[in-house]
């Protein structure tokens, strides 16, 4: 498993960051997409912004944006009827089991 997958399996969402230009490299990679320098791994903020959402059966799925740059799809757990674009979310859970899993809640 990769560093990204291992950390995610341990409940920690990490992203690659260039050691030279400090750019966050998403999706995760061993090299910077700007200058090809090696990366370090750092934890991503647990606060995200809701970009878009929809629903399949009773599950809400959404795109959430972290730190103004990293966008991922995940599930949104809420009983609220009032969900709006731009709302702040918390990354409540993440995991890796054959695929990445992200679970959000309204902040």
């Amino acid at each position: 498993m990769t560093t990204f997958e291992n950390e995610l399996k341990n409940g920690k969402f990490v992203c690659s960051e260039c050691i030279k230009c400090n750019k966050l490299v998403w999706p995760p990679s061993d090299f910077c997409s700007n200058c090809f320098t090696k990366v370090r791994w750092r934890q991503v903020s647990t606060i995200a912004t809701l970009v878009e959402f929809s629903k399949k059966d009773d599950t809400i799925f959404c795109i959430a944006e972290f730190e103004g740059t990293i966008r991922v799809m995940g599930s949104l757990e809420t009983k609220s009827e009032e969900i709006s674009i731009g709302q702040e979310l918390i990354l409540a859970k993440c995991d890796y089991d054959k695929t990445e899993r992200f679970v959000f809640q309204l902040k």
Partner: protein
Amino acid sequence: MRGVALVGTGLTKFTRSNISIESLMLLAMKSLFENTKNLAQKDVDVVLTSTSDNSKYLASIVSELAGLTPKISHSVESLCNSGANSVVSAFAYIAAGLADIALVVGAERFDSPGRILEWDRSRGQYKHPIYWSSMFTKAHMRKYGTTKEDLAIVSAKNHKNATANPYAYFEKEYSVDEIMQSKNLTEEIRLLDCSLPCSGSAAILLASEETAKKYTDCPVWITGIGQKTTSAGFTKNTDLTTMQSTIHAATDAYKMSNIQASNVDVAEIHDAFTICEIIELEDLGFAKKGEASRYARICYETQDRKINPRGGLIGSGHPLGATGIAQITEICQQLQGKAEKRQVQGAKVGLVQNMSAAATSSTVLILQS
């Protein structure tokens, strides 16, 4: 740069058959040889295969199976726009003078691994295409008031067009109500808003301007090409109401051919989902932003076949590696006046738009008779 023409085509019917990728390709190649006058196996000096199947050394394998010994042979893989991209590669070989005759064949099986891009970590557990298409749909509905009925009209139009296409997977019309009542997959998308993975193949022959007339009396010229990759990951699409790769590709293709959207008589565009056709109509310049639903509705109500006359992906089925080549085949036949019941009268200028992986890459071709 010398001119390159489309001079022959071959298709198989799109089905859910359990048939090998090699046999599918051979069937389309057989059809192409039968349809193309004066074509001998020794004439073919490029063979390109287009598929997202996991086959190895496929272009050489199908060359051997078809009795061909080309100078150049290889596969082109780019998920759903593998087909149009392989035709662009063939164009480049001929235009550069490395070859005179190129045979491009694309195929896919119904169970292709190309349906899901496992690499895309940004999709999390939501890797199936219905999730990205739901995001585009919701965003377009939010910004422009697009309705589920607008989506259903696109599907009804393309299923109706497909009934005149003997190679299409679907053979019946669906009413707007039937489409709206089809199974809900997500809040926005129903089953009949989607194209169906299937088994099928398409082949096309390209020739240099010096040799084109040997094979057809009505060559169709590739006069414009645009390609753009903006990313591979879906969530890099920053504006979900538009397809940036399509805008870039169309701009380049229009510029190269010195035409505009208003000059296009007939087009095959990549309706993997109904929302795709709506956004593409806008991004290709056929309708202003927010007005494509109205445009598609008029096409449906007036039975105008200008957009997706063969039924698009929704009516014909979507065998990934064959799709772009089948789109080009349709426009080629339209410009040759050989599209039979599907014919758009007087068509002289055609457009093909083939895209991949949630619009992260697009290819646009302009074809002229």
